[in-house]
């Protein structure tokens, strides 16, 4: 990928890099947990776009199938993580009435017998 914007692969690789930056900003600088999950997905698709674009450096050969397969796998993994993160956040909102994490240190006054009631 030489510096000149010769063809679309370079363009989309740079777009992917920009999307990673934009998503990362949302992930670290915003506090609403749902927005942070959304930002995670923006970073994820930026990474994938970057990856896919680097696999299209030789349009004469077509797109490299290996990155495509890895990206499909990555999309499913990202969906799985997103689903769990969202379930955690809805549960937390139901328990605490909050949509962002508290900043204080872990609660030292948790209920006493709460530790070993797994079978319950």
């Amino acid at each position, binding site marked *: 990928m030489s510096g000149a914007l010769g063809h679309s692969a370079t363009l989309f690789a740079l777009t992917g890099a920009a999307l990673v930056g934009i998503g990362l900003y949302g992930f670290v600088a915003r506090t609403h947990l749902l927005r942070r999950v959304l930002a995670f997905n923006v*970073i994820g698709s930026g990474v994938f776009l970057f990856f896919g674009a680097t696999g299209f450096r030789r349009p004469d050969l077509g797109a490299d199938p290996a*990155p495509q397969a890895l990206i499909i796998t990555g999309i499913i993994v990202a969906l799985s993580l997103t689903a769990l993160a969202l379930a955690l956040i809805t549960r937390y909102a139901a328990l605490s009435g909050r949509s962002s994490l508290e900043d204080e240190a872990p609660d030292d006054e948790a209920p006493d017998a709460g530790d070993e009631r797994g079978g319950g």
Partner: protein
Amino acid sequence: MIAVTACLVLPLAAALAAIPLGRRAPRLALVAAPLILLAALAVATEIWRTGPAQLPVGGWLPPLGIALVVDGLSAAFLLTGAIVTGAVVLFATSIFSTPDRETRAGFAFWPLLLAMWGALNAVFLSGDLFNLYVALELLTLTAVALVALDGRRETVAAAIRYMLFALFGSLAYLLGVTLIYARYGALDIALLRILAEPDAPTFVAAALMTIGLAAKTALFPFHAWLPPAHAGAPAPASAMLSALVTKASFYIVVRIWFDVLPVAGNEALAMILGAMGVGAILFGSVLAIGQERLKLVVAYSTVAQLGYLFLMFPLAGSGGEAQPWAAGAWNGGVVHALSHAFAKAAMFLCAGLFAEAIGHDRMDGLKGVARTMPLTVFAFGLAAISLMGLPPSGGFTAKYLLLTAAFAGGNHFFALVMLAGGLLAAIYLFRPLERAFAKPAEGSDITPIARWRQAVPLVLAGAAIALGVFSAVPFDLLRIGRADAAQEGLE
């Protein structure tokens, strides 16, 4: 090697079967655990006899396909994982069994634990950077769910915090992997060892992967999520998280630095890792001293102990030529990871038993438990010996090796920090032990704990000690197929 496949297939098959089995899952786990342990033993004995092996999955050779790697390092982690997880399975049957009606936690625990085991084995056997990513995500998913299993507001918050660090870590790692592929057209560790060159994409990739994995390992300053998560999980899950889950990402860092990219392991990056390790040791230890709840003491101790692991990178040296102490640093780091796994699993199980007996896990409640639960206190004490680095124990052997490497390489500062860390560990572990041997408080009533359950952590703590007494065995195992850079030092 059919045993290698068994190490992957058995736990995953058991995890899948546990979903429809529901209430009968604990019995399934009790059958599967010894089989998986046997498979891990078979892998270790086979490479002991015939040397390291590379197994292309589906018969497709890398770079097209994925190869499994079986060497001393993977076998040592497989075995440690099997012993710890087997003990956890046994221990958990009395907590997560629901004889009459399926419950939420009773259902979820077993498939999650077994899938975690499968994911760990997949990490320890994989020789492919992207395959490691998928395995690592399976591990993260099960780990986060187990942290939240108690369902209290605090534990759900701890799980979210963990999840955020883990998400950041996986993206950073994945980004590094994509760069490696873009640069070399290969993801196989053995191939990359031949191909790797010190250039811009490789350097960025190595940095990204290392940062991502450090976040997943909870290396200082990415440690904030660990204490609430590990302390809030049910005791058997805490044991898995502290002993093994943090080690899986560390294991990948070791693979990347010594097996894949010794050329990219540049001195500055190694020093940064070392500095983070120093921060972890000092910060984790000091905070462990101040905790009033036993599980938090043990969890902060994990933050500190993980720091030692990362001293391995600067201590394995740099400077471009063979360094006789590099092998010592590598061995020290790995043995530390293994002995910490045994000792910390034992400690969390002990903490769980204490909490069950006295109804809470505040330190003041421990007064006098040495009389009522001598076995558990003994196990806790043995594990403490290894964590403090006192002889004869795996922790001692590891710290001795790391210290020797530090002095030989002229890294006196790291040696000083390690010595200080041992002293601080003695202080934070002395506090619960002192209370255990104190006179029992008036009117404290204790729920009796079955003797066999107290024996489980004792076996694990015994393993941490045995690793020091019979240290020749792990050394011989680890030597099989060890990377050159682990013997001669990073360039």
